[in-house]
């Protein structure tokens, strides 16, 4: 492997890894705070991507401007879904919670199929054709924006949770909900905001992802699985872990196709790492047993 291919793989891995990390941050926040495994996370992302498509075709000339639409939409959408579907199952068994979110994902996917049809949509940005070429290494402007945007959003989320009053409430509710109630924290409200924040991660990820990708009603499945691997790899409920997990998956994918003689083995490599970690460090890279946000 020459240095160009090596450096190109690092660029590709970091760019895709940062997006995986941002998507996974939303998932890990929801799990960390209310212990719910949201199987509809990929479908939330798919809806946010359609939000980008429609706002881009109707309101904004550049797809990145869709952030102004998708961020508030995903926050409100997240709150609505929490109230309608998640709050009633907060105290149910984990298997029930998984089944409800799994069903919700199917409903969202089929609803998208009916409303938006199965046509594949494409969104371009003014930056789509801009790129930096260093030697023979290609870095597109959309990759740079995706990387910076994802890291910035993850950092903002981390700061909110670690330093703000809301973050303290979130952490308290995740550590011990009953004790949090005793000291006057409105735990259900904290859950509501946490869920909405988790969905907002997708409202940010969607405009960053769409110029690099295509949009279809079934796209969510791909990202649900990947974000689960990222979250478990980094440690359930841990932001820094999600970031590291995202980069590991992104880089494994990039180097897999470059190094392995058969490209189809790349998913084997990714899930191989995943299984090994589950066997030897089931709490994830940065997780400690029982760790939370």
């Amino acid at each position, binding site marked *: 492997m*020459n240095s160009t291919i090596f450096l190109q793989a690092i660029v590709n*891995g970091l760019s895709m890894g940062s997006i995986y990390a941002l998507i996974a941050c939303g998932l890990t926040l929801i799990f960390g705070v209310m212990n719910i495994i949201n199987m509809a996370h990929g479908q939330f992302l798919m809806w946010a991507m359609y939000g980008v498509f429609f706002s881009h075709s109707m309101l904004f000339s550049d797809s990145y401007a869709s952030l102004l639409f998708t961020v508030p939409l995903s926050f409100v959408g997240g709150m609505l879904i929490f109230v309608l579907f998640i709050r009633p199952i907060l105290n149910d068994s984990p298997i029930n919670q998984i089944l409800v979110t799994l069903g919700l994902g199917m409903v969202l996917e089929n609803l998208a199929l009916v409303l938006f049809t*199965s046509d*594949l949509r494409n969104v371009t940005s003014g930056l789509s054709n801009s790129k930096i*070429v260093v030697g*023979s290494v290609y870095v597109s402007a959309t990759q740079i924006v995706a990387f910076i945007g994802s890291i910035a959003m993850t950092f903002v989320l981390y700061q909110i949770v670690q330093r703000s009053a809301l973050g303290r409430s979130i952490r308290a509710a995740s550590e011990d909900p009953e004790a949090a109630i005793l000291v006057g924290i409105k735990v259900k409200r904290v859950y509501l905001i946490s869920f909405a924040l988790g969905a907002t991660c997708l409202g940010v990820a969607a405009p960053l992802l769409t110029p690099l990708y295509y949009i279809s009603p079934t796209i969510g499945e791909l990202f649900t699985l990947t974000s689960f691997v990222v979250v478990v790899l980094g440690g359930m409920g841990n932001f820094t872990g999600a970031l590291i997990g995202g980069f590991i998956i992104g880089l494994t*994918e990039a180097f897999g*196709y*470059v190094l392995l003689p058969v*490209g189809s083995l790349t998913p084997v490599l990714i899930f191989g790492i995943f299984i090994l970690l589950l066997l030897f460090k089931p709490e994830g890279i940065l997780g400690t047993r029982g760790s939370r946000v």
Partner: protein
Amino acid sequence: MKGRAALLCVVVLSLVMCFGVLFLPTDVQAEQKTVKIGALLTLTGSMATVGRDLKDSIDYAAEMINAQGGIKSLGWAKVQIVYGDSQAKPHIAVSETERLISKEGVVAIVDQYPSATTIAATSVAERKKTPFVAGISYADIITDRGYYFTFQLEPPAAYVGVAKAKFIDWLGSKMGRKLTRVAHLFEDTDWGQAVGKSQREYWKSNGYDIVVDMSYARPLSDASPLLSKVKAANPDIVVFQGYISDNILFVKTGHRFDLWNVPWLATGTCMPPAFLEAVKEQGEGLFDLNMWAFDISKEATAFNKKYHAKYQKDLDGNAALMYQSVWVVKEGLEKAGKADRQALADALHKIKIEPGPNLILPYEYISFDKKGINAGGRFIFTQVQNQRWVTVYPENHAGSPVKILPEWKK
């Protein structure tokens, strides 16, 4: 007395109605008859956009057959299409095939792709002794099992490598240089593997240098890793076989890597209208191995005009294959003379459809050998020019001259 007269009237009227049917002209009676043909498509799931597109062409075929009166040898029976949805998943294809045969009572099934679902569905059809026309799929295993009830409309996978090599040589002659360094990307299910193998073997033994030879698991989440390897290998041409969503990623990412400085050749899955809508001007210059296009002949242009007027889109190569598949079943039924699955299969093994109104594809003929393969099938090559697929090769079918992009000359 009045009551008796009324009763008599009712009895007489009933008798007239019952016996009257026997004296109606035969074509009026035939309107009551229908023969059901099953169509297994990907109407939902990851390939829904393709399945929905193909459904129109199947509906159109049934409409054309019925407009001509129906199937003559069955007393002008009308054709009715019953749809099954494979969702592009083999296990769903199995249950849908079972339903079409056992519950709906179809006399035959026509099917699209992916090959993985066709392979699963043909096993059920063989067990249930129901003719199954694989309209688009052509992974080797579909016909290698020697099923009596399976009929494949497209040429075998082995033909693809040969046809593409001829095209690459011809394209090189038009570009003024030999294209020998080939980058080869293929999805890793049955179809991609079968075509990949045939291409690799033929190219290697015919002096081509395969500079990248990579399979990938679909759907791709990122095409950058694959294409960075292609970029570093500095190929003369990129040849790929993937399904529509991966193809879109290849085109988008190919532009990001400045890889559009060489020609790109797809394998018959870029022609759906949804593909061009998604890639827009980025698809300009792309080649695709194809089976039909509106400009291969005057008849095709006239045919497409009518189709376009009805559906506001061109009939693409895959849609033409599905249209033809329904006509194959129709021709089989004409020969069989009865709507019986065994008789239909026997008839399909004997039919020979020659170029003419019953054969819209640019094939030499349609006739199935013992394995169910149609040896008369031929490929054409199309190119995106001004966001429309036009035929450029072979030259006897070409509707437009090939467009050599300025960046290819560098």
